[in-house]
């Protein structure tokens, strides 16, 4: 029987994950993300349908699938770039139904983009500070008049930005223009900027795209380091199976907008439906 989809006006329910794959250590804690039967249509095209996923509060989850399966569309729905046509998205138990991108960001969802979207004309440090935009508290007036609050807050922001940049050893690049950074550094800066929003769920859209094997290995270590340091959940889209199988605790496989399998790396590798989606049907 299809689950009743809660309307926006009802009081928040306590979420009860029914088919979650969250790691043991996250049991008893509120899952950071619960997407329930979400779907979106573009005109007559059913881009994503009946997608359900639960992510534990410190889980690293992979979202994989062939090209055009709808992975980035799901990211766009989670961040409300697209409003889902159907279903409910709960972030830390809060319904995001009526919210827009900015409000979801304030709830703690941060993301990176498949095609890097940095503020190219601004410095690396300012990019990180822009990530911290909603943590810095002074208005336009204090900024123009350079009131004491401006200096105080900017000092804190500067220190915090440097601290975040030190995760990837990028402090030396703080004054460079973001657009002039090499490709790999731009990808790393995007992750740092997302961390600046103080997220509880970090969405990484193909973080290893264009990286060589040794860079990918370093990225894998860094993703785990980020999870351990910040105690946040990470949901990532990736085509590099070494990365996905290596660090993801739960994996969801998407094909033609539908979830076809969910489980641990081992479950997924042996799932005949997944093998068929990637390699095609065996002819006999």
């Amino acid at each position, binding site marked *: 029987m299809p689950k009743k989809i809660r309307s926006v006006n009802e009081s928040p329910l306590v979420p009860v994950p029914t088919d979650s794959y969250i790691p043991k250590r996250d049991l008893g804690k509120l899952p950071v993300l619960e997407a329930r039967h979400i779907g979106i249509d573009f005109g007559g095209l059913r881009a994503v349908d009946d997608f359900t996923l639960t992510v534990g509060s410190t889980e690293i989850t992979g979202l994989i699938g062939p090209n055009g399966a709808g992975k980035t569309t799901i990211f766009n729905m989670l961040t409300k*770039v697209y409003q889902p046509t159907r279903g409910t998205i709960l972030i830390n138990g809060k319904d995001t139904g009526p919210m827009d991108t900015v409000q979801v960001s304030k709830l703690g969802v941060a993301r990176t983009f498949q095609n890097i979207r*940095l503020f*190219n*004309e*601004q410095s690396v440090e300012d990019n990180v500070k*822009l990530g911290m*935009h*909603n943590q810095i508290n002074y*208005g336009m007036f204090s900024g123009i008049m350079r009131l004491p609050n401006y200096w105080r807050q900017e000092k804190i922001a500067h220190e915090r930005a440097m601290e975040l940049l030190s995760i990837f050893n990028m402090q030396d690049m703080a004054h460079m223009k973001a657009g002039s950074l090499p490709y790999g550094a731009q990808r790393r800066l995007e992750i740092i900027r997302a961390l600046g929003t103080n997220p509880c769920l970090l969405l990484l859209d193909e973080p290893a795209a264009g990286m060589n094997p040794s860079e990918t290995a370093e990225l894998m270590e860094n993703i785990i380091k980020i999870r351990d340091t910040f105690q946040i959940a990470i949901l990532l889209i990736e085509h590099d199976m070494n990365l996905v199988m290596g660090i993801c605790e739960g994996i969801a496989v998407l094909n033609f907008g539908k979830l076809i399998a969910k489980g641990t790396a081992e479950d997924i590798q042996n799932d005949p439906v997944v093998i068929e989606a990637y390699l095609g049907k065996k002819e006999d």
Partner: protein
Amino acid sequence: MKTNNPSRLKDFLTFAGVILAFLVVYIMRSRGMLTRSLSGQLVPICAYVVMAISLNLTVGVLGELSLGHAGFMSVGAFSGVVAAMSLASVIPSPVLRLVIAMVVGAIFAAITGVIVGVPVLRLQGDYLAIVTLAFGEIIKDLINCLIVGVDGNGLHILFNATGSRSVSDLHLMEGGKVIIKGAQGATGVKAIATFPAGVVLILLALVIVLNLMHSRSGRAIMALRDNRIAAESVGINVTKYKMMAFVTSAALAGAAGALYGLNFSTIVSSKFNFNTSITVLVFVVLGGLGNMTGSIIAAAVLTILPEALRGFDKYRMLAYAIVLIVVMLGTNNPQAKALVGKLIPHKKKGAEEGA
């Protein structure tokens, strides 16, 4: 914050340059070294410099093309003139009246900015440019219909939309005076704008825009220009910051308009037409988007240029256009840049800044 930040140094040099230029021109003027026409141009130059700085906030920093900036200047000019003339008997000090006029001009232009901004800022790119153009023309025509007078009872305002009303419909008491006569504009204005006041306004506009750019709000505004989707993803409220930049820009244009309006004895609203908007846009583009120093230099040079070229008589607009094309090529063409770099070796750093 580090003080040896290169952009801060550049800001400092801009301030120093403006003050230095002011001192040089001021001394030259007091010794009678300036021609009559040039010293008459000083206040308009200041007004256009402020216009260029304020439009650069919309076009260069926010990244939205606005073609109706003269409309805000117009609102500022006429509200400033009305404020200055109606307070003439109450406040004898012309300096104080000028300051009040500029504040009033800025406030009215800001209000207009909000009214225009609400519908316009929903659009992007070319559409926004076209709508701002239309708003500029609408503002011009609305002011054309205004008849304003002042007497002992205060301000009298008539809106002459049908063209059937005239000054006598204001029913002014004896001793009252008419400030704005519809399409004839404001006449009999006492010119109280001064060159030092203009320079102070330039410095003020610079402080506001540069400090804004280096603050949280300014970063958010520039983030919208660089990548709107990414800006939203980090929680930046698009409407709020677009509005902030647009209204600040309108307010500065209003103050510039008040300065400009109070420099002439007669001011008509057709002065603030599409051509003026484009002229200011040329200053901004030529000086470099987001580059306030460039805007100041471009506005000053291009305001003086037509006057300086008066000797060429009918060829002067042609010469003006050629200068524009040469400067555009010189700042954007890599070969031309290299040539300039070769000719003037120590100019190289300046060329990089212009890029």
